[in-house]
């Protein structure tokens, strides 16, 4: 059943899926290029009716990774799309045009990781206080308490 969804996506996007990791029968991780993200997400969300759960960014020191988690509730499968971004110019296409619910999490990743989302309608701060210094991104690994004292 699970192979079914994984297979479907792979069949559809043979070129675009760079890597498939099947953690268990309920969890599939697919790596795509950021250029192909919108197409794959569109397929999952619109065509296959997956529910967009959330995106989560990870600071991997040499690069950023964003995971977009989609849930197929009926099949009990969680498909996570993995996108890798370079550290000096972290930029990804915005999903908020496709999925309204993605607008907030992109704002959040923008302010906490400093990732730029191209095409986002209102990429402003969501959570941090007004007097928070620019270009300081608390969820990056280089952020430590010392910076709190300065700010």
């Amino acid at each position, binding site marked *: 059943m699970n192979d079914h969804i994984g297979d479907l996506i792979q069949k559809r996007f043979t070129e675009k899926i760079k890597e498939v990791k099947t953690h268990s029968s309920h969890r599939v991780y697919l790596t795509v290029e950021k250029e192909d993200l919108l197409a794959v997400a569109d397929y999952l969300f619109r065509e296959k009716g997956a529910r967009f*759960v959330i995106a989560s960014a990870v*600071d991997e020191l040499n690069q950023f990774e964003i995971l977009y988690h989609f849930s197929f509730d009926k099949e009990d499968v969680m498909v996570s799309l993995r996108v890798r971004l370079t550290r000096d110019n972290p930029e990804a296409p915005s999903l908020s045009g496709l999925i309204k*619910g993605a*607008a907030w999490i992109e704002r959040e990743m923008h302010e906490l990781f400093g990732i730029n989302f191209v095409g986002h309608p209102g990429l402003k701060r969501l959570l941090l206080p007004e007097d928070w210094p620019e270009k300081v991104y608390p969820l990056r690994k280089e952020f*430590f308490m010392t910076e709190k004292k300065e700010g």
Partner: protein
Amino acid sequence: MDNKKKKVVVPIGPYHPLLEEPEYFALFCDGEVVVDVEWQAGYNHRGIEKLCETKSWDQITFLVERVCGICSTSHPFAYVNAVEDLAKVEIPERARYIRSIVGELERIHSHLLWVGLAGHFLGYNTVFMWAWKYREPVLDIFELITGNRQSYAMMKIGGVRRDVLDEDIPVVERVLDELKPKLEMLTQAVLDDPVLSARLKGVGVLTAQDIKDYGAVGPTARASGVAIDVRRDSPCAAYGLVNWQVITCQEGDVFAKAVVRLLECFESVKIIQQCLEKLKKNRGPIAVEVREIPPGEGIGHYEAPRGEVFHYVRSDGTNRPVRHKIRAPSFVNIPTFRASCLGQTISDVAIILAGVDPCYCCTERMLTVYDAQSGRKMMTGTDLVRLSQEKTEKIKQKMGKNG
């Protein structure tokens, strides 16, 4: 938006009696009608995700418990699910039942709390007091089986931390038996009240398409006819082992949300009763030992009273996670306000906001940073619980002496 400038801005918050928590909604109004809503968050921002990266796997259960006080077992529940998914751990059957019992008790207490608050928002304080009166026995059960009224500290990677004692089971059963007629009475009273219907029906309607667009979850989704429930779709703990139903409504208004929540309480009672029956027969260990967490990533989700809680953890094989992402249900439920509030009056907005049972603490879980180098001692959740209990004891003694 140009029309924003012309309109009166009615602030709700940051400190507003509608919300127990600080939050700011700017309602752009034309007379009484709301034409736009803007949300400003962050007043509750604490920084749990970053803090998780500085804590060991076991400590995090206590930390995520304090993401939110009302869903204080749902977050640890989802977190241990995530870690168990990562490490591929199977928990013993007895632990499954205990987890479900705690989870469902929390659902009853949380839904009753919501019904009460919703009544309070409508100026119907009688409902508020009655619902909270019936909620008290549930908290008593919690105190009996976990030792605390809130923040139960029951979840543990690989099982549960405490066993439910045999002598406590009849007490819990008795309280539940007494609770059921009261719940029925309250449900009747709320659903049959003509004025409540007038205030709630057709207000703040969310369509199934809205739910899909925003990815809304929980009672908010189920009230709009979207039958998603993590407990059924991805059965963890004992949910696959007992009989119960997913409650849905079609209307998508606030009234439907109230109906869903009230009826879910009965399902919860059913689940707990079945779990207790099974507990009596099943005598196994309550936890397996998890010595270390292998590198990898894991996803855990659980149906909190407000909807799906989602936790993502990544490990590099050390004793603390590289990344811990928490998504609370309110994070995807709150944006639906834009769809449900526009065109409504200010009076209705109050109850619509309340309708999704927003939990801002959950939404803004992030951002506390802790200096790994300084080596300063952090208080762990256990310390806090211990301190809290000591203080309570002290106060009790003092009171005892004085009175």
